[in-house]
């Protein structure tokens, strides 16, 4: 069977399928934003952005875009009938008070103990780019990570423990990569779904912590 790494769209569609009816979700900048294109039609999901849009809609087309309405990735989006706009402190009050059911974030590294790192690109480097990630990571009900499984040179990014400074400790519930869907288990990861054509051994070779196959392991399911 031909090995097929998941595209970013496929990763976004798969992780968005985890969202439950009525959830309030924050989608991080970059890949996680793509989840908004794949929200399950039968579920009502409220999208929250750090700049205060509560219940915003899909990305705007060139014709629909206005310079006044963007999401946290500074991408023009549509307002909906039920959208409310808060200021930044209130938008983060929503986060800090635990009202986010899920935060989907990108990461440089994830650890088997549920830590992840996404704000500093090197140990000892001065400065960093935190944005809203630490607030979301510390306060959302659950964190899903979306990222490429390895660096371009094949170096694993799913590790036993993070090498980079962490964004938050012990918060990651699911990791979606181009090789599958994983759950951190403390010292390793359980692989729940796997990219078409790959074996667990092949994925293990690209992962920096022990992998165990879920008894229900299956190929990544896209509806």
């Amino acid at each position, binding site marked *: 069977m031909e090995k097929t790494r998941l595209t970013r769209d496929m990763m976004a569609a798969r992780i968005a399928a985890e969202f439950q009816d009525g959830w309030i979700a924050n989608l991080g900048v970059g890949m996680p934003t793509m989840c908004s*294109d794949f929200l399950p039609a039968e579920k009502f999901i409220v999208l929250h952005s750090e700049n205060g849009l509560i219940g915003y809609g899909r990305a705007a087309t060139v014709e629909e875009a206005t310079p*006044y309405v963007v999401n946290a990735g500074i991408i023009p989006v549509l307002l909906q009938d039920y959208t409310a706009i808060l200021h*930044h402190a209130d938008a983060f009050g929503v986060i800090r008070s635990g009202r986010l059911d899920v935060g989907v974030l990108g990461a440089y590294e994830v650890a088997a103990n549920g830590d992840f790192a996404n704000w500093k690109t090197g140990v000892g480097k001065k400065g960093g780019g935190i944005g809203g990630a630490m607030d979301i990571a510390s306060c959302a009900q659950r964190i899903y990570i979306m990222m490429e499984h390895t660096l371009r040179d094949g170096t694993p990014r799913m590790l036993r423990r993070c090498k980079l400074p962490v964004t938050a400790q012990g918060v990651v519930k699911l990791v979606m990569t181009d090789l599958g869907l994983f759950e951190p288990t403390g010292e390793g990861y359980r692989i729940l779904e796997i990219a078409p054509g790959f074996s667990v051994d092949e994925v293990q070779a690209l992962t920096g912590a022990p992998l165990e196959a879920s008894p229900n392991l299956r190929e990544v399911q896209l509806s």
Partner: protein
Amino acid sequence: MQTRSKVVASFAEAVADIKDGSSILIGGFGPGTPHNLVNAIYEQGAKDLTLILNAAGTGGGSIRVGNVSVTNLLEERRVRKVIMAFTASTHPSRTSILEELQDGGEIEAELVAQGTLAERIRAGGAGIPAFYTPTAVGTELAEGKEHREFNGRTYLLEQAITADYAFVRAWHADEFGNLVYRGSERNFNPIMATAARTTIAETEQILPIGSFEPEQVHTSGIFVQRLVQIPPDGIFHVAVPFTPPRPSAPSGGH
């Protein structure tokens, strides 16, 4: 009763008294960035500034598109300290002027989680000196900060931020200084307006007093000391990079 108009004729006049060593809150997150005021302080020449904002670039969002931005002030070494949620590029292959200045010890850069930054400003405007937040517990940013447990959870003590000036951008103002923001222009602007001794607002229109219903007003005029209407040749918007929407879900193949 007469109300005193706060309308200032030009951006140059609005920032003329800002001295070297001043601290300035700068609103914006893409939309809502006071580009004309940033441009004016750049032209005015003040240095040794402390700037509090989300990110450099256009002043609010982290994107720079041609106009003068906080980046220009950084490049000319006119900033002593920044307090921001982004003090480095989020991509390892890119570096910013702010990273160069940090590496050379030429600037103090305080990196703050964005929600903590917003709440520190809100607290500053609300007369609250400090507060506890769970954000950043267990990270490098927690080092040296007071930790305290409430109901079994650990929190960090964070201190309020106030400044000499706030630069904010709104859609409409009335001559009393009441402000209305459009769409996501709001972001940091309403909280920054409350946290400065002198708040200067740039707006697309300045309307006569009585133009707003009280329920419409987002920022009370008591928080705004100076108003400047953006002239026809001013900066109204800075284009944001456009990502076209992709309407269809994948069917499972490439």
